[in-house]
């Protein structure tokens, strides 16, 4: 193909948008509406999961050691635990640290009466898990490790967080499927309008002897540009809304800021931006491809 022909077909794609203003606007609005809903929904779910993840990270399993265990064995156990796939990181609390912390927290000046460390056997590892759903697995392993006397776990917290996480996952899948159906329906309607607008034009091109590529390419370019605009617009709106809403919530409800951690707009857009662009341009590409294909066999 000649370079000038390629340029011409690309240029036609751009001019098609202004030629069929209403059709272009309807298509952009449809894609924008779908991606706006997706953007809002993604922001909410991503934050919810982030908050849960933060809560999960605070959940730790504590292991205590047999009486008279050597320092070497404790270090060895620490190494073994660290290498487990479930484990995010571990903290070693020596008996003295455990006593000091207990003293500070509960006894204050009354602690002076103790001459020896009453928590001599309280050296322990705090084990932080990557995902609370893995806790049961890890605990059953820890209970069988030689040198470990006791495993403390917060089963209820872990199960609750795990349950909420799963629920959010199911709801997210449900809503995404619903959104997908709505999008397909809306885009199907827009494509149908596109077909009636283009039928005559495609017929003329084919009678003149245009190849499928020559007919299709401007429409595909047009579809992709519409998809691009249709994804950039809702991204901009979601960006503004997100920034303002997070700022508003944290300012108005200062108590929340100490409990909840929200994702920054950059963190949300790190994922939302590429996904929305791919979906928008992809919908434009597929939509225009299908529209033209229905009439290209003349």
């Amino acid at each position, binding site marked *: *193909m000649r370079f*000038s022909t390629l340029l011409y077909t690309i240029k036609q794609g751009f001019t098609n948008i202004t030629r069929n203003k209403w059709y272009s606007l309807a298509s952009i609005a449809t894609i924008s509406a779908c991606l706006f809903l997706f953007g809002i929904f993604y922001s909410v779910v991503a934050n919810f999961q982030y908050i849960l993840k933060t809560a999960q990270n605070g959940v730790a399993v504590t292991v205590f050691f047999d009486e008279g265990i050597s320092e070497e064995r404790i270090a060895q156990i620490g190494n073994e635990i660290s290498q487990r796939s479930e484990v995010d990181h571990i903290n070693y609390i020596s008996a003295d640290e455990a006593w000091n912390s207990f003293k500070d927290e509960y006894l204050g000046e009354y602690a002076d009466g103790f001459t020896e460390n009453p928590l001599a056997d309280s050296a322990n590892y705090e084990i932080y898990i990557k995902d609370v759903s893995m806790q049961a697995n890890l605990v059953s392993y820890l209970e069988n490790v030689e040198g470990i006397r006791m495993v403390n776990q917060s089963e209820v917290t872990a199960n609750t967080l795990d349950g909420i996480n799963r629920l959010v996952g199911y709801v997210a899948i449900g809503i995404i499927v619903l959104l997908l159906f709505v999008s397909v329906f809306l885009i199907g309607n827009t494509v149908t309008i596109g077909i009636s607008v283009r039928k005559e034009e495609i017929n003329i091109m084919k009678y003149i002897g245009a190849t*499928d590529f020559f007919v299709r390419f401007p429409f595909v370019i047009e579809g992709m540009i519409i998809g691009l605009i249709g994804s950039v617009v809702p991204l901009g709106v979601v960006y503004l809304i997100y920034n303002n809403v997070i700022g508003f919530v944290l300012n108005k409800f200062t108590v929340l800021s100490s409990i909840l951690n929200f994702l920054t707009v950059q963190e949300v857009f790190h994922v939302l931006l590429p996904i929305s662009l791919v979906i928008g341009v992809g919908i434009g590409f597929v939509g225009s491809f299908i529209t033209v294909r229905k009439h290209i066999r003349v």
Partner: protein
Amino acid sequence: MITLDHVSKSYSTGAPALNDVSIHIEPGEFVFIVGDSGSGKSTLIKLLLRELLPTSGTITVNGTNVGKLKHRQIPKFRRKIGVVFQDFRLLMDRNVYENVAFAQRVVQVPNKQIRKNVPSILAVVGLAGKYKARPKQLSGGEQQRVAVARALVNEPPILLADEPTGNLDPKNSQEIMKLLEEINEKGTTVLVVTHNREIVNAMKKRVITMSQGVVVSDQKEGSYIDEI
């Protein structure tokens, strides 16, 4: 140039649209195909453009067996046939120049060449001064001239005109036919499907009369025959 050899075409319902039609048209001929509606004229045009395939028989155009063309070969085949329709079929959102240039772009003529060819063919059809106009700003006759210019700009050896005067008044009809005659004199084979009695009778060209899918008459310097 164009040969139909025992060609029949049936649609899924009803009687055959064409029934055992054999026609041979030499290069440089000017031929009218006449007949009332339902006679098979439109089916014939669609078969020649490979929009339809015959149910039986062979169609050869420009040495190509139309029935054996693959989908991807059709565009190249159609570029050797200029087509003019009753309803002009112009791209309404583009001006006269762009409508004609479009046919050149389809066959990938360089821009420089297009800038030479389009004004030249517009001069031939008498529209040199209206290249910037949109189709809606033109009369029916002028729109049909644009369609003729578009059909001819790639210099096809064959020009098919399907009821080219169907939407025109007598004066414009005569002018379009005069234009087609001039084109024919320059060597292009012209095939005009029409039911315009006055024009057929005035031009004294070869006339093939069809009725109910069958060729009922083929006269060398013929006239319009009413349905037999």
